[in-house]
């Protein structure tokens, strides 16, 4: 694909479609030559009009061509063909152009199906307004952008632990909009806040995990020291350590309760915190299933925290009182390697019917919590970029659809110069722009979009 030529065609088509002659035609040709020269010298540019500084020149020429200043052309061509309402096929042609130029090559089956459904409207009716009603009722344009993301979101939702915020939070905050959106504007809105939401999540998840891991570690240290004292192993050292642990745990729990608003009740009533307190280790690629300490440990932790550590009881009294709840330390994998093998086998069995896990095996990169958080961060960035791309594409579609539908009764049929004045202003797209990241679409596409709209209503 000659990207430069495609970009220039997208800019120039709306001008040439107006059949400029005389001075206007010369200006158009000069502009085209300038864009070619700039493109040759700057092959990396995806915004030829903007980067070359010719935006205002382009805009002025565009408005001159569209505003009917082409008096020479009018005089020379008195017998212009009468305006006619576009056919359904002509209406859909811009979508076809986008699909053929950039979407088809991405090989996304659900998106391909969504486009096929859109194009099939031509077989369902030859009435343009009826066609637009069908498209609107069945959200066919919206579907071309959301199809794959909805499927991805659903597949991912089935594979993650909805309580485990490391993997589920970003999905809940962002992709969910694709499931329920009925308009471009909803997706635009979500796209605008998605990045900020994900940035917040990255920090907050890290802090939440840190807090629970620290409290869990302190309570483990307390229990571990008690166990060693019971077993008669280095009793004095462990007793001294309990003095330090008690001081640190009191300070840390005060920090959690007073500075972060988190009590042990909060922890027990928040599934994410509960599971973090049980030292989870993932058993699949997304940590849907997790190896954890015995869940009864939470009873023991509550007991030792309130009845021992935070209490005023002397440590000697605490050590002389039997703990009523069992605290189970984790099974040592070196001594019992068969346990982990069994757990992995069970996890694979539990996940066997979940499509995501049929495609993605457990991997080294998510074998640790740090690795999982890294991957989740990557996924959050992917989500935001996807929403951004979806919004850009939809804006283009919306420009076309709103352009055609807003001009009813025959707005769907409105055409050329008349429509020019009210050209929708959202960024439009051509196939090339759909693929580009941020910069090109938002500037160049805007000008192009207006042209694409006009292309719908050829004389």
């Amino acid at each position: 694909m000659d990207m430069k030529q495609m970009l220039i065609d997208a800019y120039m088509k709306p001008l040439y479609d107006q059949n400029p002659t005389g001075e206007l035609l010369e200006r158009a040709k000069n502009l085209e030559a300038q864009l070619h020269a700039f493109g040759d010298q700057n092959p990396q540019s995806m915004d030829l009009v903007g980067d070359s500084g010719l935006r205002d020149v382009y805009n002025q020429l565009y408005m001159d061509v569209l505003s009917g200043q082409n008096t020479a052309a009018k005089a020379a061509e008195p017998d212009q063909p009468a305006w006619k309402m576009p056919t359904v096929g002509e209406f859909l042609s811009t979508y076809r152009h986008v699909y053929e130029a950039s979407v088809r090559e991405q090989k996304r089956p659900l998106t391909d199906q969504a486009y096929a459904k859109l194009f099939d409207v031509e077989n369902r009716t030859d009435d343009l307004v009826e066609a637009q009603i069908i498209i609107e009722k069945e959200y066919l344009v919206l579907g071309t952008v959301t199809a794959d993301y909805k499927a991805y979101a659903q597949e991912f939702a089935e594979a993650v632990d909805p309580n485990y915020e490391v993997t589920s939070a970003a999905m809940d905050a962002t992709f969910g909009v694709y499931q329920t959106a009925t308009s471009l504007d909803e997706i635009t809105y979500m796209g605008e806040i998605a990045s900020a939401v994900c940035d917040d999540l990255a920090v907050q998840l890290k802090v939440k995990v840190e807090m629970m891991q620290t409290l869990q570690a302190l309570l483990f240290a307390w229990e571990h020291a008690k166990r060693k004292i019971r077993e008669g192993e280095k009793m004095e050292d462990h007793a001294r350590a309990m003095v330090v642990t008690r001081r640190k745990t009191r300070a840390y729990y005060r920090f959690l309760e007073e500075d972060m608003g988190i009590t042990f009740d909060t922890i027990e009533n928040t599934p994410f915190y509960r599971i973090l307190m049980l030292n989870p280790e993932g058993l699949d690629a997304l940590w849907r299933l997790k190896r954890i300490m015995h869940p009864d440990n939470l009873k023991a932790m509550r007991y030792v925290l309130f009845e021992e550590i935070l209490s005023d009881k002397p440590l000697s009294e605490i050590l002389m009182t039997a703990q009523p709840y069992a605290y189970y330390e984790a099974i040592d994998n070196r001594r019992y390697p068969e346990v982990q093998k069994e757990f992995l086998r069970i996890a694979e069995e539990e996940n066997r019917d979940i499509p995501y896990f049929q495609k993605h095996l457990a991997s080294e990169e998510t074998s640790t919590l740090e690795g999982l958080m890294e991957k989740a961060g990557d996924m959050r960035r992917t989500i935001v970029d996807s929403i951004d791309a979806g919004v850009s594409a939809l804006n283009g579609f919306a420009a076309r659809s709103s352009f055609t539908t807003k001009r009813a009764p025959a707005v769907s049929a409105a055409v050329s110069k008349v429509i020019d004045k009210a050209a929708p202003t959202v960024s439009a797209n051509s196939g090339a722009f759909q693929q580009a990241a941020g910069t090109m679409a938002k500037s160049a596409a805007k000008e192009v979009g207006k042209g694409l709209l006009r292309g719908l209503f050829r004389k």
Partner: protein
Amino acid sequence: MGYDLTKNIELYLLHAEHLREDLSPNQKQYYLDAAAWLGEQNFSTAEEAVAAMKQTPFYEGGALAKTADDIGIRIKAMKEVGYDDVAAIHQQRKEKFDAQGNGYVFSSAWLDDYKRAGAEAEKYARRKEVFGKIFAAYVQITGNPQGEYRKDAEADITAGIQELQTLGVTFDQLAGQPVYRNLTMTTDKGMVAFVDFVHRYLDGGPADTSLDDMQEEQDEIAAFVQAHKAELQAVGKNECWKNANCIAVPADNDEGYVYIAEKVVE
């Protein structure tokens, strides 16, 4: 084929139905008004309809409504996330659009302003990242007050403060704004403690938590366990000190999980 006005009305009403009042108020109203206007007309051809519409505000109104809502969405979104400076730029765009209409949209100022808003949003993102890093380091130090365990976290705080300087802001400026404060999830008291900690840190650093004052208590308990060794071990016989693991499976219950495959070993 004859011209069916009712279909256009149906299409307009459908558009209005699909648009949210809080996000697309101008477009929603446009479609409702346009449908009402059509309902009062009696066109026999599409060409006649187009010609008539050209003489009304409806002809350009759709695009104008779309643009107005597009800007409105961005103002709303930026206020939602606390990016007040970005919202202000979009508000300026709204005012320019209200005053100039498509004249503003077709100008280079339209894209320049849009890019300016994007650049401002990037600043927020960067500052949040650094502020969050400083807070995460503070949380880590809170759990590890002794110096030997907090060197990395201290380095993060130092680097974070320096980076804020290169971004042209101070820690105190950010700590005073909800968009950064809310990132921390702290209570009001907690935010005061965080800010105070950073101030003390910048003034020379809070002292390590000394263990010296625990020496006496530690000596006492060490002597106690030495003297009551047999009794302490006897107490252990009434307790359960086994090792165990199980698998947590997500479930739709109050706890959020069911537990399977419990393994217990001595």
